């Protein structure tokens, strides 16, 4: 089913692009379709991983890999996550745990997750994510490697993680027989650094007022791009966005903009089809100009010191460490993007993100940015009630409207 779905998706997107209907989002989705197809091809060496795994290193070893939450999001976007969540609940998963993980476990039980050659768990961002990888390793009876991502760069933390990543490369070699060629690794990092540069430009353009970003242009972008780092695909996607945003920024300087509210989206988007984004745009002229994870928080990888660079990058993700880091990062984004308000979909089951809702709200309020907390399950559409959201969103914009102009 999944293989067929990704094949169809790839074909559809390819013909649209070839037929002159290209858009950056289509290029992005095309690469996702290709990755999905490879994951389900039965031919590639597959690894299931945690979110902060250095995917560029795995790409350099020809391993087709992704974080398991990606599958949860895919199932939600295709409208079938509910069945898999139910399956996980049947085998004893608590409905209080993150539904990204329940969907993935349900998919594994139903045989919808290809058997990997190995798995890599990461302690960041969440305890639930690590647990699900341990469970999958047990279920598939495949080797598991764990990366303990320290809370910050202090002391010997970077070296500690760099050593683990080195060991990880050895573990992958042992598990698959694939060797890590130093030339290929260096070339992968060069791809990573070029993609990083282009993405930085894309984000800089997104900061403009009015922003060239519309609707769902960049939803899930930062987190999913990590999967393509180390390959040409990452550069290709980033470049498509850069060209389009340049064009739009140019046009916007000539045309009046309908952008009334600029929004910051905290954590992940709601992954199933829902009317929120269009409601924001149509009813309130509000645009999500920045998602929390759409930022470059790391320096270019020093190709003479690759493992340390990868370690620093994993440590730098805003979900890692104390909430202070995360709030500081959100405040930085709010200022740089001249944000009028923030939306926090508090995914039920996420202790990492939702657990700190109050602290995030306080931190943004300190700089005059109101936050709309939505009680939502980002994966399970069965719990979504549009009416309830609508009332809350209306009230939020009324308040934000009254405030606007006094924010900075």
């Amino acid at each position, binding site marked *: 089913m999944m293989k067929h779905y990704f094949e169809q998706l790839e074909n559809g997107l390819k013909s649209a692009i070839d037929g002159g209907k290209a858009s950056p989002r289509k290029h992005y989705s095309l690469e996702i379709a290709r990755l999905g197809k490879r994951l389900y091809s039965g031919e590639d060496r597959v690894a299931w991983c945690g979110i902060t795994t250095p995917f560029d290193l795995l790409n350099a070893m020809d391993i087709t890999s992704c974080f398991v939450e990606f599958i949860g999001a895919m199932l939600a976007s295709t409208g079938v996550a509910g069945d898999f969540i139910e399956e996980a609940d049947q085998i004893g998963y608590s409905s209080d745990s993150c539904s990204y993980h329940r969907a993935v476990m349900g998919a594994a039980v139903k045989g919808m997750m290809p058997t990997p050659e190995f798995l890599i*768990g990461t302690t960041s961002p969440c*305890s639930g994510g690590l647990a*699900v990888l*341990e469970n999958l390793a047990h279920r598939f009876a495949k080797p598991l490697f764990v990366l*303990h991502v320290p*809370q910050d760069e202090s002391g010997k933390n970077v070296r500690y993680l760099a050593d683990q990543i080195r060991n990880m490369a050895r573990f992958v070699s042992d598990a698959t027989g694939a060797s890590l060629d130093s030339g290929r690794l260096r070339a992968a990092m060069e791809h990573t650094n070029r993609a990083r540069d282009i993405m930085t430009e894309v984000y800089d353009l997104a900061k403009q007022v009015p922003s060239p970003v519309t609707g769902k242009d960049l939803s899930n972008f930062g987190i999913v791009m990590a999967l393509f780092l180390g390959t040409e695909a990452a550069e290709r996607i980033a470049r498509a966005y850069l060209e389009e945003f340049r064009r739009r920024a140019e046009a916007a300087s000539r045309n009046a903009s309908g952008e009334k509210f600029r929004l910051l989206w905290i954590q992940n988007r709601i992954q199933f089809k829902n009317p929120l984004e269009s409601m924001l745009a149509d009813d309130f002229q509000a645009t999500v100009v920045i998602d929390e994870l759409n930022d470059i928080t790391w320096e270019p990888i020093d190709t003479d010191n690759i493992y340390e660079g990868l370690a620093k990058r994993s440590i730098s993700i805003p979900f890692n460490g104390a*909430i202070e880091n995360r709030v500081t990062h959100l405040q930085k984004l709010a200022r740089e993007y001249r944000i009028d308000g923030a939306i926090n979909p508090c995914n039920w089951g996420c*202790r990492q993100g*939702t*657990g700190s809702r109050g602290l995030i709200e306080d931190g943004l309020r300190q700089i005059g940015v109101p936050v709309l907390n939505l009680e939502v399950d980002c994966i399970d559409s069965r719990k979504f009630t549009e009416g309830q959201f609508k009332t809350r969103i209306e009230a939020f914009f009324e308040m934000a409207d009254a405030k606007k102009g006094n924010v900075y």
Partner: protein
Amino acid sequence: MEKTKWIGFACSYTPLAVIHAAGFTPYRVLPDDKSPDQAGRILHDNLCPHVKRILDRAAAGNLPELEAMLIMNSCDAMRRLYDAWQKTCPQIPAILVDLPVTSSQNAIDFFRDQLERVTGVLENLGDTGINPERIENSIALYNEMAGYFSQLREKNRRGGMKNGAVVLQGLYNRASVEPPEEMIAELAGLLSEPDENLSSDALPVYLFGNVLTDPAAFSLFESCGARIIAEDMCTGSRLFTEIPLEATGDFLADYAGGLLGRRPCARTFDASEPGLLGRVIVEAAKHNGACGVIGYTVKFCDPYVARLPEIRDALKHEGLPFLFLEGDCTMNTIGQQKTRIEAFIEMLR
């Protein structure tokens, strides 16, 4: 008399001996239901009641005068407790200690460095210099206490202690907040008492999970016909097991390895043996002669919640009946499950 200086803690991976060596008495902030619910204002409803009740105590000032609060980075909830603690009671500094999830050699080395950092922080907080001898002595002291506890557990297992599990829980609670020297004398006294000659038709049950502190909960199990012959709980035996010292000459390294090498709870595991926790529980239940297993965890505990299906499978595979209870650290929620516990014990007969 010299004033006791307390360092708060909340997790059984806490390096008690380091705290002690620095001249402090470790004080476990046990969750209770005596402080009004204020944590909900800062922490989301979906966080485990263990951390929320700890925060409630801090917010209500329902604590002795702590010099600092040492928080192990054991899970998302504990990390959020660290964040919220700083907001709620900034007058008590919080120290976050990073805790690896495995006990590989480089994880042990890393944890050793964390312990060294804690040593420095505590030295600055107090007025006692920590040297290797002090650490060795403190480890030995806690090992002595753990040794007494393990003998008491054995006494309970062979049926030599009236209301053994209830008594033990009361002792664990006190040993979590009182100076070890005082507890050791009391434990030794208890051990010297002859075994009681008890006969009962209660059924031997093994208990595992995280936070269950109220001895009344153990009375409840007994009143339902269960005899808790052994347990593996965060607020039970797990804090009081001996840590063997290797002859490496680096006590912090030995201690780090010893702490990480303890019987794993749900947040620590062996990457080379995924699913080990279920097997560990099965072995412990069988080894202790249990005819059934009760799991008790607080709600929203991701490490346990995620491992339960595997634990359930492992127990089922061995034909060990299993009852899972979920609660909020209070007697209230466990009391409501009395009928289920009774039915489970009946089913075991």
